[in-house]
């Protein structure tokens, strides 16, 4: 059995890339449905007209202040420090935007009861959940792109333009990290209340970004049963850490090659597809509108 799994482990990055490509194709096919697209675009439009954009503007100001300040406190590695600070702020504000939008998307549809009208139209749970996921992912793409452009623009005019070769893939990975977080929040919103969903998403995101640390702690556990349970739990928790490369991308022992980036993207797409599929299943079984009767 282990011998059989060995090549699987060896070629796991390539397998992830392949599976990710399949999932990407599935998302593209799903998005080509007019109903999914209509729900996705409606989600983007609704969210964009809220005040999230103000948050992005705020980010821009904070980013510039933070990165320029960071470049001065670490003499000798000003560029790296500015990049780390910028990516940190991008990831943080991206995470907040994602959690806010992704936990709201389906919840607001249920709370404002527009879901009743959706259900009176010929749409499947598949259209609603995939539409919501793609809509929020689109919104995350817009916000990460805007923030990424500010970051990249800052480095273009700075003396550290050579760092862009690492910064751009890092921004791309942040987007796929947040896309995975989006899928997790959308899945959560099919079964949890909004507050529970926000809290759980933040906890899982925190656990996921410290994946290797928690894995190491698990291996040190003395009680085997406990160790197995924690291992199983960590297997389920998405490894958000692999997308967050700002701290290690300037270290000598880390190589940022295409296989790393693509396998991380593949992993994100695969996990997101599984979560969206589960979300569709749970939503199909969900009964909405039970909070009020007449």
């Amino acid at each position, binding site marked *: 059995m282990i011998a059989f799994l060995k090549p699987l482990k060896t070629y796991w990055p390539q397998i992830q890339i392949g599976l990710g490509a399949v999932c990407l194709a599935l998302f593209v096919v799903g998005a080509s449905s007019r109903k999914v697209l209509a729900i996705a675009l409606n989600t983007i439009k609704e969210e964009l007209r809220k005040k999230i954009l103000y948050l992005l503007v705020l980010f821009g100001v904070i980013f510039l202040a933070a990165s320029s300040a960071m470049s001065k406190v670490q003499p000798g590695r000003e560029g790296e420090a500015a990049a780390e600070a910028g990516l940190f702020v991008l990831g943080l504000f991206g995470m907040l935007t994602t959690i806010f939008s992704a936990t709201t998307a389906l919840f607001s549809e249920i709370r404002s009861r527009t879901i009743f009208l959706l259900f009176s139209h010929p749409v499947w749970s598949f259209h609603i959940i995939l539409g919501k996921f793609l809509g929020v992912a689109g919104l995350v793409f817009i916000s990460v792109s805007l923030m990424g452009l500010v970051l990249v623009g800052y480095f273009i005019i700075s003396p550290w333009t050579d760092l862009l070769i690492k910064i751009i893939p890092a921004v791309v990975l942040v987007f796929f990290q947040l896309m995975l977080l989006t899928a997790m929040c959308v899945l959560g919103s099919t079964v949890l209340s909004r507050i529970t969903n926000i809290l759980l998403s933040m906890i899982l995101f925190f656990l996921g970004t410290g994946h290797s640390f928690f894995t190491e702690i698990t291996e040190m556990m003395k009680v085997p049963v406990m160790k197995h349970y924690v291992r199983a739990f960590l297997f389920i928790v998405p490894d958000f850490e692999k997308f967050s490369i700002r701290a290690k991308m300037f270290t000598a022992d880390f190589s940022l090659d295409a296989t790393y980036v693509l396998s991380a993207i593949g992993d994100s797409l695969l996990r997101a597809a599984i979560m969206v599929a589960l979300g569709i299943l749970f939503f199909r079984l969900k009964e909405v509108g039970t909070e009020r*009767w007449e």
Partner: protein
Amino acid sequence: MDSMDRNVVVKTVDLTKVYRTFWGKTYVRALNKVNLEIYEGEIFALLGPNGSGKTTTMKLLLGIMFPTKGRVEVFGKSPRSVEIKKDIGFMPEESYLYRFLNADETLRFYANLMGLDRKTRKNRIDEVLQMVGLTEARRRRTREYSKGMSRRIGMAQVLLKDPKLVILDEPTIGLDPMGAREMKDVILDLKQRGKTVILSSHLLADVQDICDRIAILHRGDLIRTDSVENLLTIEDTWEIVAKNLTDQTRQKVRQVIQEGGGDLQKIGHPRESLESLFLKTIKEKEVEK
């Protein structure tokens, strides 16, 4: 037409809905073994006080909720079936709208869910906005709409679909008398076009005006179902309406009734309904202008 000859559009058999707490304890029995048959082309009203089960019935018909016991069929299929949704139009009690969209965008969204192509979509949207009198407000965000306007946009998304079955939750609530009359005319027009309409209302005069049959619900129990005619006719009382009677003739009528052993209750002038008087007065004023 006899009910046996008519197509059944909606059928419920022992339909029961129980709301439970998180721990599975019965919280409220919203519907209790309700048996209904609603026929093609009729306007059917669900009446009852708050908490009687009207909205729950509608949600079950739309497949938003699942029955605890019993079953519900719409066009012979489960209401969860997506196939039948293209033939169902629903206007909820409050028009639940996307607050950041305008009327045009709202209708375009629903048209896309129906899979209408661009040209048909544009024509249909123009047509229904005109029907509900919102053409001039089409670019305003729905959050700026009055309650009456929100009801109209709710009706517009129903008309956009041109469905066979229309479900309306409190269609005239929040509308001024003119708006309520227009809404009732739209509903009567739907019936003329062969659509089946199910509505719930607290406004009994509205129901009496336009409905063919009524079901009265009370705390989840269906207590009466019949035609408006049968329910409201007082079998042992007769009404004679005549014009231009002299005092002498009225005396004679009184005498004939008494001689025949009848108990004369009232002879007087009939009264116009307040709604009719109001509408007539407003129309006259508009003609003057």
